[in-house]
């Protein structure tokens, strides 16, 4: 792809002066954006900057209050997603947009099922889906499988196929990798490259800067709903980009690790823990320590977390908290003993979307302890500030927050119980660089106050940067332990079972 081509060719889509208000709240202001065929255009910015909103304006989900949309030089207005689709614009949403109970083919053709003699032509639907999967080089997904039975990464593929099935020429992807593990991200890279070769214009939103640099040709930065800059990717360094996004340089990304003197007694000890998913788990978390738990998707990281927190308890082995044996049989028991678990799935398990920020933040605390009893009075404002939440106030419905800010509410909810042991599963999924830094500082600060932290993350740099020790899981077992600051290769060797076979 030649850069000269970019400037000479006329754009497929041009957004001009887009403005959007929600209930008087200006979310976008005078934003311009061009998309060219065969180009990946990255859209970056902090949580709540308006990235998803801009995408939704493009895809006809929201109608802009100001500004114009041109497709192939012709002015268009989209009253609905369907109208945008017929103009060749499709969107892959930030939250999964599939019906779990329906088949892959049914999802791909949702809303546009082919009809013959008054009945849905299932054979054609399946053949068409098969063809699209082939075109993308995705084999191993049957069009007839129920979507809920597919692993997350394949659901993501289905989502993309669904977007393409409308003969899309413009594809907007909102954090397509947020739900994927590192090795699955590679598959998506391939997919995006193939889409580019097929001359599709891609608008790509991600908080993972590595992806932005790997994939995009141009970058647009939004801040507080306004356009900061548009630049060819080659002309930017990652530091410059971060400065544009956050408005200031971020120094020393990860906070300092704990010194040996900072570590206290063992807070949580698991010996020979096992259940249907994991086996022979030995785990010791000391006060002040952040222990990373690495492994591939399905290796059992979340299963360990869920066992420790009573969601699917260990059926074998012993658990000790602060040196005394503890039987943790339910999440409630865990919370009452000071073990908190920040889940990875915010939509499914983490949040009551229709309730307010306040109700969500206090949910666990109220449920497990009753109002106020047993805990110090809590300063909600302070708590929300500590996770750098951007919301209109504690009364805003969580559903209306941007994706990243929802994640921050999940964090706040668990911090509200003032835990002794904190298990965090993908704590920075979908949150922006500035907020990530805040979460890192927050976790380290908690450790400094004597909390023992078990950190699960699919983003290796984060896991390595944050952990005082790294445990690597493979196939339901702990394959090995690495000291602070291991290399990515060392972790991956254990995670893929390489080291085991070599030994």
């Amino acid at each position, binding site marked *: 792809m030649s850069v000269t081509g970019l400037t000479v060719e006329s754009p497929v889509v041009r957004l001009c002066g887009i403005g959007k208000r929600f209930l008087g709240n200006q979310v976008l202001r005078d934003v311009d954006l061009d998309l060219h065929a065969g180009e990946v255009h990255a859209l970056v910015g902090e949580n709540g900057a308006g990235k998803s909103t801009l995408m939704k304006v493009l895809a006809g989900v929201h109608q802009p209050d100001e500004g114009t949309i041109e497709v192939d030089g012709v002015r268009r207005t989209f009253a609905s997603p369907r109208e945008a689709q017929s103009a060749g614009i499709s969107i892959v949403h930030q939250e999964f947009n599939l019906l779990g109970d329906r088949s892959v083919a049914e999802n791909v053709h949702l809303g546009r099922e082919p009809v013959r003699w008054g009945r849905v032509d299932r054979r054609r639907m399946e053949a068409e889906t098969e063809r699209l999967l082939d075109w993308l080089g995705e084999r191993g997904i049957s069009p007839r499988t*129920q979507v809920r039975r597919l692993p997350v990464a394949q659901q993501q593929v289905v989502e993309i196929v669904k977007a393409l099935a409308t003969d899309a020429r413009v594809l907007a992807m909102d954090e397509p990798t947020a739900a994927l593990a590192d090795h699955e991200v590679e598959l998506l890279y391939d997919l995006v490259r193939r889409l580019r070769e097929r001359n599709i214009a891609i608008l790509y939103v991600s908080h993972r800067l590595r992806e932005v640099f790997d994939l995009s040709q141009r970058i647009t930065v939004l801040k507080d709903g306004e356009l900061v800059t548009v630049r060819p990717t080659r002309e930017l360094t990652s530091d410059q980009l971060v400065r544009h996004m956050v408005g200031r340089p971020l120094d020393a990304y990860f906070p300092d690790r704990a010194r040996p003197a900072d570590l206290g007694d063992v807070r949580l000890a698991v010996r020979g823990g096992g259940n249907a998913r994991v086996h022979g788990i030995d785990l010791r978390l000391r006060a002040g320590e952040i222990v990373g738990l690495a492994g591939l998707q399905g290796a059992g990281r979340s299963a360990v977390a*869920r066992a420790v927190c009573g969601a699917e308890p260990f059926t074998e082995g012993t658990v000790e908290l602060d040196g005394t044996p503890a039987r943790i049989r339910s999440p409630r028991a865990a919370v009452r003993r000071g073990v908190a678990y920040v889940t990875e799935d915010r939509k499914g398990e983490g949040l009551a979307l229709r309730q307010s920020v306040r109700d969500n933040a206090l949910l666990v605390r109220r449920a497990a302890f009753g109002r106020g009893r047993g805990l110090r009075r809590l300063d909600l404002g302070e708590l929300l500030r500590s996770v750098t939440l951007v919301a209109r106030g504690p009364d805003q419905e969580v559903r209306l927050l941007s994706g990243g800010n929802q994640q921050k509410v999940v964090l706040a909810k668990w911090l509200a119980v003032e835990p002794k042991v904190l298990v965090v599963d993908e704590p920075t999924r979908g949150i922006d660089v500035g907020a990530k830094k805040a979460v890192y500082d927050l976790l380290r600060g908690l450790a400094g106050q004597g909390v023992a932290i078990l950190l699960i993350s699919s983003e290796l740099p984060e896991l390595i940067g944050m952990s005082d020790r790294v445990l690597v899981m493979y196939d339901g077992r702990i394959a090995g332990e690495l000291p602070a600051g291991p290399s990515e290769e060392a972790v991956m060797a254990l995670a893929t079972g390489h080291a085991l076979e070599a030994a």
Partner: protein
Amino acid sequence: MSVAVEPGVRPQWTRLGNPVAAVYGALVLLLVLGSVLVAMRGGVLLDQGGILNILTRSTALGLVAIGQTMVILTGKLDLSVAYLIGLCSLIGAETMAGDPGMILPAVLLTLACAAGVGLLNGLVVAKLKVNAFIATLGTALIIRGYLENGYTGPSGQVPRVFQHLGYDRIGPVPVSALLMLALAGLAWWFLARTRPGYHLYAVGGDEEVARFSGIRTDRVVITAHVLCSVAAGLAGLFLASRLGSGAPWVGTDAGYDLESIAAVVLGGTLLAGGRGGVAGTIGGVLILATLDTTFDELGVTPFFKDVVRGVVLIVAVALYARRRMRR
């Protein structure tokens, strides 16, 4: 939860698979059990009269429940059907007024009125975003007010030919039951094979997803409500033909509102929507009718009858919930 998912494709089941088979399995079991119990009392459950009884009971409930299935599949609910049935029986019988020539106009008028009520329900739910529970409860109250104000007992008269609809049978099988089953077949085809049917499932599965996929979710919800009310209208006409006239209480006495919801849920349709179908519903209807007939044969008190029905319903839904969790 990532760990629960094994990579690769797992064995699949078709939409018509598991729950429906389970419902009909339970029905067969119940028929056997009922037969044994009745036989111990020296009776026969499945003789000509018994079969007739079960099928006749199933007809009106079946009609309502087919409609209710549509609404529940979209994740809504219709509590107005019982009063609507009464209203429709009256409209039908009064318009006919004993004149065979008026049958067709009366049927059309009745169904048009029913469709109007469905349209109202649908509009309030879809456009005004009123919760379906409340919206249809409101409609129910409005119809009740009208009925109580205007009627104290049966009214109107259906001509003799029209009564044939309610009483004719082929062997032990009432013609009306066959018509009901035909309608069920049609509804099944609609849901499983046509585009609007697909969209019904989509809206029930996740309304946002459906909307973002370009489905006009409002129309789908309205359609479901209209179909449900028309089905209730048919039930009203059927009951009028059995009774010979219309009556304000025909729908409410049998509790067709809650009964139809029970049948749908018993048939394996998710109350939250998006999953299930008419085949299961008919199974649920037959189970309820068989229970009733068996208890009548056994001469059990109505109180005990209700307790058993309640238990059956709760156990069934609990089993479905377990199944779903294990998936």
